[in-house]
């Protein structure tokens, strides 16, 4: 067993960390306050290759694999969760769907400009009546000659209002249900009938655009069917395996950041004539935070490695998502406790990070759904 990071990935991490320290952190509060990520920051990240870390060079990517993507996601999450979500929705599920199931032509045409950051991707699955029950989607796609006519409404779509390329899941045969009756489509945002209704006003990740999309008689060429006709649900599930893993990596980065902040604050903050770090109550919190981070890091990197080896990792990805999101939430909670009053104030990043972390227990499949996925897998295939 060799747990060391390659020299390439170590340098990639250093680069992403420097970028986060120099460019993201100074803008993180403004991103949260303004509800937007500056175009200049997106351009810088595109130049550095952040939008295509996990995709092969032949499609405009970096070729650093899922582990490389997780490391970059971890580092940017130290600065701004809104940027983590921008990159996650774009690369981890949006563009990833095209990489996983696209034809060579679709990869060249759509994945390449997504990898370079020239275009932004979104992944449109959730609907008003289909959240955790993704099979209950009502958006329809009806074949008409060489086109499909799509009608429906999608909600809570990350990157929705800024995306150029959207993966839309629609019912093509209601009788067949989720497996066989749902098809994925590559949709360009400039198609007639495509409409961004609004961006949501949220508790956290406020710089990420979470949008409601409407499709009215939107005509999509038949060549834009992604993957096998009727197999859209499988595409969605495969992409979400990656998304959940990347989400875990984001939680890991935030957790590491607040542990560093907490340790520093505990040493500097003096009460009753001594550092609060001298108190056992503080030491135990730091110790528990660090122990959880060790476990988080271990499962994130191991699962990313499994993914890069071409192994199945659906169960592990659900575990990563559930464990890391809950632990990050607890760790940030403890970090605020260690910081006391200042941790609660808006002029300190913990307040934002606490709000940002809450969504991780909900999106990309709630943690309750993840536990169902894990349990079903255990009951079907056995435990360990």
């Amino acid at each position, binding site marked *: 067993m060799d747990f060391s990071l390659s020299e390439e990935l*170590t*340098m990639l991490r250093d680069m992403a960390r420097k*970028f986060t320290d120099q460019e993201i952190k100074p803008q993180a509060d403004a991103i949260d306050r303004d509800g937007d990520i500056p175009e200049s920051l997106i351009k810088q990240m595109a130049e550095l*290759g952040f939008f295509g870390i996990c995709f092969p060079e032949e499609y405009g990517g*970096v070729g*650093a694999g899922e582990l490389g993507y997780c490391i*970059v996601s971890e580092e940017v999450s130290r600065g701004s969760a809104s940027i983590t979500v921008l990159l996650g929705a774009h690369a981890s599920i949006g563009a990833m769907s095209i990489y996983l199931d696209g034809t060579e032509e679709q990869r060249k045409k759509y994945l390449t400009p997504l990898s370079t950051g020239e275009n932004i991707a979104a992944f449109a699955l959730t609907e008003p009546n289909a959240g955790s029950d993704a099979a209950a989607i009502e958006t329809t796609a009806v074949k008409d000659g060489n086109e499909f006519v799509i009608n429906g409404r999608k909600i809570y779509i990350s990157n929705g209002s800024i995306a150029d390329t959207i993966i839309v899941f629609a019912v093509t045969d209601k009788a067949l249900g989720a497996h066989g009756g749902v098809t994925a489509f590559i949709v360009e945002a400039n198609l007639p009938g495509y409409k961004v209704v609004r961006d949501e006003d949220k508790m956290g990740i406020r710089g990420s655009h979470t949008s409601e999309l409407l499709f009215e008689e939107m005509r999509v060429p038949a060549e834009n069917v992604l993957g096998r006709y009727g197999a859209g649900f499988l595409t969605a599930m495969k992409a979400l395996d990656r998304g959940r893993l990347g989400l875990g990596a984001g939680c890991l980065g935030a957790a590491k950041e607040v542990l560093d902040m907490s340790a520093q604050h505990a040493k500097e903050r003096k009460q009753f004539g001594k550092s609060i770090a001298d108190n056992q109550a503080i030491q135990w919190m730091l110790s528990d935070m660090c122990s959880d981070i060790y476990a988080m890091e271990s499962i994130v990197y191991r699962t990313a490695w499994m993914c890069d080896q071409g192994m199945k990792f659906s169960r592990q990805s659900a575990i990563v998502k559930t464990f890391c999101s809950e632990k990050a939430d607890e760790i940030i909670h403890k970090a605020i406790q260690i910081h006391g009053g200042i941790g609660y104030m808006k002029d300190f990043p913990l307040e934002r990070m606490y709000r940002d972390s809450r969504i991780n227990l909900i999106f990309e499949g709630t943690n309750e759904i993840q536990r169902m996925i894990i349990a079903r897998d255990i009951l079907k295939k056995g435990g360990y």
Partner: protein
Amino acid sequence: MNIIVLIKPVPDLDKIKVSRGQGRVFETGKQIMNSYDRVALQVAMDFKQKHGAHVTAISICDMERTDILREAYAVGCDQCVCIWDGNFEFNDAFVNARILSEAIKKIDSADLIICGARSDTGFSGQTGPRLAEDLGMPHATRVISAELNGAILSLECLKGLKRTLSMPALITVDPEAAQPKLPNALNIMKAFKKEVTRWSLADLGMEPSDAGKDGSKVTVRSQFLVEQ
């Protein structure tokens, strides 16, 4: 135009351990690029982008202990040369300048040599000027701005001093000369697949006695930590 940039590894100050009892500094982890040399690389890259150039990075370094030549590839260098031999640990600026001089003569095509003005650790600032003297090149130190017109370099040095040099020439740069850019991710991945040319003293036609303690002019008699 052929540009040569000299880069040096230095200890990562975040990863050193100081033993006051023993009066010593211990290095842990890999060595990083001298901050002034990062600026020198960026000045070279700016010239490359504006005028077109083949950029070679040369370092006297142990590649087991540092990735700075990989980093040089990642930011856009076309060729990297590592010079290392067993007894280099105690080289002073005099020896390093001689070694670099032989290496540059071996490359035989330097129009412009760019160095950091000094190192983050030694602060002597001697290697650049000594090398220029060895090579018989005009040079300017502590450059904060450099423009190229044909074969003429128009320079602004620290404290507003203006200079012009005809190439081939050597300059040493201060941090104001350029803002180092981060390497992009794809170039990082590619950097580790590229070949680094490796030369020993013998490859440069030098003897073991030309380097290390035997070749150096500076003798370190003792080291101690300044009380704070």
